[in-house]
């Protein structure tokens, strides 16, 4: 069998089929050069495990994303969003979202101010802990939970 250096990452990642894995393993038993390369790459692979997961952000991006999508909707009809039109018609966010094109990181204080004025946003679905109520509402409204299959 030819050298296996081009397959070592997939071997380490567990992405080879059982047959391919056996072939690589057998080769490593007999080929000194490939084994040295494997050990070196395995060490780097292991070192990557020490890379820490970034600290989670304290604030959700959702309020800012919501404002930006509503602002974008004002100039773009796709997809048709009843809620965006309703919010704009109510004059809730025009002053906050324009002309800057929407809030960015750091604008969360102003986002919060908008939320205070928006009784709809204060409804339970904005809270993680009460997501069930929202979901139950959809289900009652006829949203097929199994629609489309798959997902996370």
């Amino acid at each position: 069998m030819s050298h296996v250096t081009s397959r070592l990452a997939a071997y380490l990642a567990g992405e080879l089929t059982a047959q391919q894995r056996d072939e690589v393993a057998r080769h490593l038993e007999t080929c000194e050069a490939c084994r040295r390369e494997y050990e070196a790459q395995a060490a780097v692979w292991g070192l990557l495990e020490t890379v820490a997961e970034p600290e989670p952000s304290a604030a959700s991006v959702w309020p800012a994303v919501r404002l930006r999508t509503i602002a974008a909707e004002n100039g773009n009809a796709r997809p048709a969003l009843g809620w965006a039109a309703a919010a704009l018609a109510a004059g809730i966010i025009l002053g906050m979202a324009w002309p800057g094109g929407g809030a960015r990181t750091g604008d969360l204080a102003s986002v919060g101010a908008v939320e205070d004025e928006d009784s709809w946003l204060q409804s339970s679905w904005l809270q993680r802990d009460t997501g069930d109520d929202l979901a139950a509402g959809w289900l009652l409204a006829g949203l097929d939970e199994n629609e489309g299959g798959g997902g996370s």
Partner: protein
Amino acid sequence: MLPVAARISDDSLMAAVARGEEAAFGLLVRRWEHQVRAFLVHMLGSVEEAEDLTQDTFVKVFAKAGSYRPEGMFRSWLLRIAGNLARSRLRRRKIIRWLPFDARRHDRPGGGPDPHAELESGEIKVVLHQVLDALPPRQRQALVLHRFQGLTYKEIAAAMDTTLPAVESLIQRALADLRVKLKTRGVEP
């Protein structure tokens, strides 16, 4: 038993977003924002930029909701959007680096790393971050998606709009490249 909201699939949420359900969009953002942000932090090495591009990613998700195909690959689709934005940002950075008077490129006299000082400081993790940042963007994207985001090669292929052999090659080259770069910096794990 999982909460009801957690049992609604991403595809169902996307169908609702395309119909104009703000609540569905809010749930989707909250479900995925941490993973998107973590991916972008690894890609960009900057929390601040990652926060901005996390927003941008979801704004694009909203804009493209109508064209999403419900095939159970939402995570790959989402991370493809985030990855494209990250690579675009990295390209822009590269252009900015060529502009004159960019003080950030002259932090150290001589411009290059000082392996002895780095090793003396014992901050191998810092070096590791730096060599990760120095990988070509597509190699870094593939490696980050697999090693830090837990995507399979198949999911990465979907997220990067490429083939399985191409993903294998990208990650193999990233690993070999990392090894060389670490060695250059005096780190041999």
